[in-house]
């Protein structure tokens, strides 16, 4: 019997590199566990549990779109590398909870094979006695037998059976460095062989309790300097020999009882994933550590920053983001600032932001532009998305002012990638402020730059752009407050329905008034608290141990939203739309207060 427990900690070959052709999903199996293997366009190899977290459908029948894997059943999208779910089509207005993440397994490519395993530790099998500067994988042969039943017949087949093939001059000496590896070194007694006889390494892949795949590689033979006909003959020769070994062995074993199957344990999902997502994140958390990998000037006043994880270890991996998401960046000077991620789909090995230097700076953009260097370490929050892109629109209109392009760029990239029609308008005061133009021109949506318009010209242009609202169309706005205000009013005047207009402010332009005092009842925890003048509701909640996520803390980003069960909120934020404010069923705990004496909150 093989030692199943020990085998779980080894690396096993599970496919040939050449099995992972572009945009394909390969079904692999190791120690009874099924895996969906796929190569992204950036060449990263993903080895995932072959099961969609939603309803258990095999991901090996899913679609590899080059950056994400789509499940066939309900179209959930899982990001390259992290396997984080980035989109749930049934709920286009919601950002998937970032904890929805499929099980991933390590995968490396070596010797022309893909290696993975349950929880592999340590090195790959070391082939110290053969030349691996060139390797040529043989066709994999699967045998209905356990690996330990194959070891000897395989060696014998090569050392003894060869004479059956009529090639008496070739002999192999065998060596088994571990229970799953066999090295055969050729000794050739004839001087003028037509077919080369390189050394061979065989790896036995324990597929399940009853099956083993033999993956062989020819070692040290430069294919490009080998006569193609001879190479062809050689590959056929080995294939024939292996099939022969398989047939004899299966015949000899025909009456053996089937072994007890290996049933792999599939980890259950976390408690909060199993039910509806609840608020459980703490404040402005800086849960991630990143390195500034590169800084680039996009225009005289805009720089882009690329943040990468500190290591390749799975623990260091950055959670996947969705278009519209932002991160809190904790700056060396102690400030915390929010920046939209501009990452496109599947770009999961880094976070990218673009920042405009605004002078006089309140300290954020200046710290990034002038003091940050490549190689510096920073703390950031995980991505949060309060500006979700619905992808169920028949047409999407993206309207950006200046640096407000950033979230819309991520949206344009995603829409382009999914083949959804969109139009992108970018308003800037001068031509030098345009950025990412080259890319935007190559994307499928139409791209329009509007340069140097004054406020009244901008208003006219916006009225033009927004002239014909239609069913199943959505509008996304991001830019400086006056332009946003103008665009929202224009859209409302032109009868865009409130729920089709989505916007994100950089900051809350309004003066906030915190001079009132009021009480809040917390319905779920049974507390009654007083919010005194000069203190925010959020601060009072935190003082009493009620943890809430927050980000901008000025009523612009929507992170600290709380549901209101009773009472009339005094909103003071720029996150909610007018209709949402009128409904009065939620507030932003960082700036909102009460018009009534008391509010009852769903906390």
């Amino acid at each position, binding site marked *: 019997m093989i030692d199943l427990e020990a085998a779980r900690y080894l690396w096993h070959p599970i496919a040939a590199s050449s099995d992972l052709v572009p945009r394909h999903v390969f079904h692999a199996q190791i120690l009874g566990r*099924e895996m969906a293997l796929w190569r992204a366009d950036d060449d990263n190899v993903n080895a995932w549990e*072959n*099961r969609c*977290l*939603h*309803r*258990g*459908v*095999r991901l090996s*029948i899913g679609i590899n779109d080059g950056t994400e894997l789509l499940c*066939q*059943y*309900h*179209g959930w999208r899982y990001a390259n590398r992290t396997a984080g779910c980035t989109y*749930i*089509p*049934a*709920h*286009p*207005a919601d950002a998937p909870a970032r904890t*929805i993440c499929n099980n991933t397994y390590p995968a490396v490519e070596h010797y022309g094979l893909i290696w993975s395993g349950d929880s592999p530790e340590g090195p790959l099998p070391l082939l110290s006695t053969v030349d691996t500067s060139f390797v040529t994988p043989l066709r994999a042969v699967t045998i209905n037998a356990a690996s330990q039943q194959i070891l000897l017949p395989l060696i014998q087949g090569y050392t003894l059976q060869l004479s059956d093939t009529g090639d008496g001059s070739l002999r192999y000496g065998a060596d088994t460095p571990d229970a799953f590896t066999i090295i055969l070194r050729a000794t050739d007694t004839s001087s003028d062989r037509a077919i080369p006889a390189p050394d061979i390494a065989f790896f036995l892949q324990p597929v399940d309790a009853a099956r083993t795949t033999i993956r062989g590689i020819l070692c040290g033979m430069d294919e490009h300097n080998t006569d193609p006909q001879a190479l062809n003959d050689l590959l056929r020769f080995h294939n024939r020999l292996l099939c022969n070994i398989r047939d004899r062995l299966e015949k000899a074993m025909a009456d053996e009882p089937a072994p007890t199957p290996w049933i792999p344990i599939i980890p*259950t*999902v*976390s*408690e909060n*994933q*199993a*039910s*509806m997502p609840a608020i459980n994140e703490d404040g402005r958390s800086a849960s991630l550590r990143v390195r500034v990998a590169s800084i680039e000037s996009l225009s005289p006043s805009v720089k882009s920053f690329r943040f990468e994880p500190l290591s390749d270890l799975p623990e260091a991996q950055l959670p996947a983001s969705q278009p519209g998401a932002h991160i809190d960046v904790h700056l060396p000077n102690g400030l915390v600032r929010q920046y939209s991620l501009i990452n496109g789909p599947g770009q999961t090995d880094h976070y990218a932001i673009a920042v405009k230097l605004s002078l006089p700076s309140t300290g954020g953009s200046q710290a990034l532009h002038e003091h940050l260097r490549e190689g510096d370490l920073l703390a950031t929050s995980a991505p949060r998305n309060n500006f979700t892109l619905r*992808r*169920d*629109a*028949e047409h999407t209109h993206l309207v950006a002012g200046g640096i407000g392009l950033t979230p819309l760029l991520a949206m344009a990239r995603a829409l382009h990638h999914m083949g*959804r029609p969109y139009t992108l308008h970018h308003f800037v005061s001068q031509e030098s402020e345009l950025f990412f133009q080259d890319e935007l021109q190559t994307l499928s949506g139409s791209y329009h730059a509007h340069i140097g318009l004054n406020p009244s010209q901008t208003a006219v242009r916006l009225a033009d752009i927004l002239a014909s609202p239609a069913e*199943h169309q959505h509008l996304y706005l991001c830019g400086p407050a006056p332009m946003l205000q103008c665009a929202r009013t224009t859209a409302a005047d032109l009868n865009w329905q409130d729920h089709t207009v989505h916007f994100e402010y950089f900051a809350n332009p309004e003066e906030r008034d915190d001079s009132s005092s009021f009480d809040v009842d917390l319905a779920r925890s049974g507390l009654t608290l007083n919010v005194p003048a000069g203190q925010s509701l959020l601060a009072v909640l935190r003082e009493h141990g009620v943890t809430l996520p927050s980000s901008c803390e000025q009523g612009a980003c929507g992170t600290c939203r709380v549901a209101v069960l009773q009472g009339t909120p005094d909103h003071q934020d720029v996150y909610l739309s007018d209709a949402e404010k009128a409904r009065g069923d939620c507030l932003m705990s960082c700036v909102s207060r009460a018009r009534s004496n008391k509010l009852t909150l769903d906390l």
Partner: protein
Amino acid sequence: MSPVCNDPVALGLWHPLAAVEDIQPFTEQRTRLLGQAIRYSKNHENDITVLDGDRRLPVTLAYGYVWTCLGTPAAALFDLPEYAEPDRRNVCAATVGVRVSAPRAVENFLDMGHFPFVHTGILGVEPHTEVREYRVDLDEQRDEILATECIFYQPQAAAGASGGIMADYIYRVPHPYCSVLYKSCPTDESRLDVIALFLQPVDEENVRAHALVSVIDTQSSDLDIRLFQQTIFGQDKPILENQLPKRLPLDPRAETPIRADKAAIVYRRWLRAKGLQYGVIPAAA
């Protein structure tokens, strides 16, 4: 051979075997139910006999199908009053073998979210993928699940439909292995078309899915209706056969539900409360 069922809940249910009209007189047919090989036949009086070895099993003819029970029926078969309405076309539209448990197939039937991806261009189409909030209630008295106010965008909702509509749906689950759906009738606004799915649990991980279509439609031929329904089943089959595990896990932590799966969440809870074992992976106590 699959082990014989010893789940008292499944043994006490009525199960469908075949469309009455498909049974040839004087030729004995074989099938399997709950892992058990059984036989059925029709004599010249058109009486139908179902046998488990030498044992005669109870028989009910209803909704175009033959139903039987391997144990003692715990209750009469559920009501489907629309079947008796005189102006309806009742068509036994399909019997398809699917390698999946009956409860997985019921969940698929209750699930609107897969329409744009699995029944592309027929029951749904991208980008119209949203599943709006709907209601799910457990009718304690009738012991059945009712999902109402279901709305979904459909490019072609039925054999007789042309052009996209926001289709209204109502789902009933009156039996652990059967479900009935009511949807807007494309030819008569005041009526609802009925499609019922009756699953025959061949064993824990295999079913024969029988469909009854009961519609107000004077245009489509029986063949049109059958082809439509079989196309839909044919699209679901490869997805269902790739669900892991095949039996429905009742442990809430086995899978990740979303709001669109409300009906399935209630269904799983209902099965758990019934103590049904056959075709499910019971939750650890």
